[in-house]
């Protein structure tokens, strides 16, 4: 409160009116500064959208809609299409979510229902610390530890198992490089797991105790309470968490760049190297010569921006709904 007493003593010889006016002025200045900063956040997002549009205009006007449907990516003949990176982005993210969601929900159930109370906080924190590890660490680990492990043990085994099964044998066709779509998916799954877990755990905590207790009271098992009461009650929130995880997976750059293999083609096999939007930009942007090449890469960025914006907006909307219900 020093500012007040200071202001009061210095204003002793001035008129009271002048002090009030000064207060009003500084308050207006401070208020405008905060308001401007808030508006700046909006301007940032608008600026991102506009600059990506402007940067990709050349490529979009040259290739038009076929940019989205062409697999070719040839810097020499300057023929660019986004299909392979879009395919890689969607496939790796989808597989990552399929793996991470059941495990994430499992951990959340474990933390809210099963875990002994003294262990709850440490384990919760440990899982959340996974979220703080920078993605480049996952990348370097994936490249030097995880990929060789997959290459020498898991992948040959899977290829051997599915060799005789039609359909699946082309999905898991060799040779086992170690790096590729599946490896990227697994790394992404590890990366989004903490986000999904911590949000699921948070929304599980919003379930009113009386609902769970009444279910237990009529003799439900823990699993039945989870399956029939907790999950239906928190469905919107879980979906929000999954979408948020999906947003992360779609835009994740460094971890994927290390292990995807950076090949601009679409292959049926999950063991084949591929590419994603973000990996393509990270790998090629600084080496891109020619306006059209750069512009095509920015156009890829624009596509990624639009996809993630939609996914994240849906996620936020869903989480907002469950927040409102918890608040009501």
């Amino acid at each position: 409160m020093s500012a007040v007493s200071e202001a009061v003593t210095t204003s002793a010889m001035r008129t009271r009116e002048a002090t009030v006016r000064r207060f009003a002025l500084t308050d207006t200045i401070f208020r405008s500064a905060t308001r401007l900063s808030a508006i700046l956040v909006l301007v940032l997002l608008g600026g991102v959208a506009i600059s990506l549009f402007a940067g990709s205009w050349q490529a979009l006007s040259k290739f038009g809609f076929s940019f989205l449907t062409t697999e070719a990516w040839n810097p020499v003949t300057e023929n660019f299409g986004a299909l392979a990176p879009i395919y890689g982005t969607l496939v790796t993210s989808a597989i990552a979510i399929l793996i991470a969601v059941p495990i994430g929900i499992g951990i959340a159930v474990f933390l809210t229902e099963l875990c002994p109370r003294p262990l709850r906080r440490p384990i919760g924190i440990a899982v959340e610390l996974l979220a703080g590890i920078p993605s480049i660490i996952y990348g370097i680990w994936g490249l030097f530890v995880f990929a060789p492990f997959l290459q020498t043990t898991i992948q040959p085994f899977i290829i051997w198992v599915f060799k005789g099964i039609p359909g699946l044998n082309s999905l898991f066709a060799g040779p086992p490089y170690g790096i590729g779509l599946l490896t990227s998916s697994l790394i992404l799954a590890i990366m989004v797991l903490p986000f999904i877990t911590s949000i699921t755990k948070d929304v599980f905590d919003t379930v009113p105790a009386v609902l769970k207790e009444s279910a237990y009271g009529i003799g439900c098992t823990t699993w039945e309470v989870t399956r029939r009461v907790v999950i239906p009650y928190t469905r919107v929130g879980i979906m929000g968490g999954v979408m948020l995880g999906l947003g992360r997976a779609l835009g994740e750059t460094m971890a994927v760049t290390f292990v995807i293999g950076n090949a601009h083609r679409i292959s049926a096999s999950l063991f084949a190297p591929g590419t994603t939007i973000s990996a393509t930009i990270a790998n090629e942007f600084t080496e891109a010569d020619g306006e059209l090449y750069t512009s095509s890469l920015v156009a890829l960025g624009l596509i990624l921006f639009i996809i993630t914006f939609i996914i994240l907006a849906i996620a936020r909307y869903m989480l907002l709904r469950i927040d409102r219900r918890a608040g009501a």
Partner: protein
Amino acid sequence: MSTALSLHQSRKRKNGVMMALCVVAAGIGLAWLALILGALIYKGLSGVSLAVFTQMTPPPGDAGGLLNAIYGSIVMTIIGIVVGTPIGVLAGTYMAEYGRFSRLTTIVRFINDILLSAPSIIVGLFVYELLVRPMGHFSAIAGAVALSILVIPVVVRTTEDMLNLVPNALREAGTAIGAPRWVVIRSVAYRAAMSGIVTGILLAIARISGETAPLLFTALNNQFWSSNLNAPMASLPVTIFQFALSPYEEWQQLAWTGALIITLTVLGLSIIARSLTGRREDR
């Protein structure tokens, strides 16, 4: 009687199986964390020496250190924080104090949450179009601006959350003795929410100190010592990226050591941030 009993048995069995699966899931999550940290410490620690902190990044096949990369990371992180924090704190202040019930706040909160999890490589492209292309060359300033754009949403979010936790009675008491709004905010609300706001800043530092994607085509990289903000500057994450993908053993070892340094920094910062506020909701 026997069907009722068998139904009971099967429900119990199902419960047992599902709960066991949940325990397994938790085990997998923790084991993975342990595996990554274990590999990192095992591979990184063997390369830690004084030279890492005192020598420049070496040419291929030579021994050397990471000094210029560490310096670059620190410089750009500091500028990023210094630029981003005031904007973030002021925006959060507007949302929690002046405009708590205004429509602008609802929109800004929504957009800010999207910025919070937007792909960081998009921010890199944005700063490339905004600064690098007009200036005609890569620079440390561009890298720092990209980092500050990542700082803003984190700080906005925590500042707003923490100011909302300050009891209104405190503000009313300030207003009742005749203090204008901004004095109340500065001397009452900020003071009460200080540890929370600092937590947000620490989390922001933790976030940007490991960011690679936004630096790739803003600050680029630099093999040599450079303190010129108008020129390309090395950073730890970009150097790790370059060295890890190289075929040279010395470079790969430096990459591991650098990765260990970053991870320990980030984990340390998150643990300090967490202990400052106790339980914190983090989305």
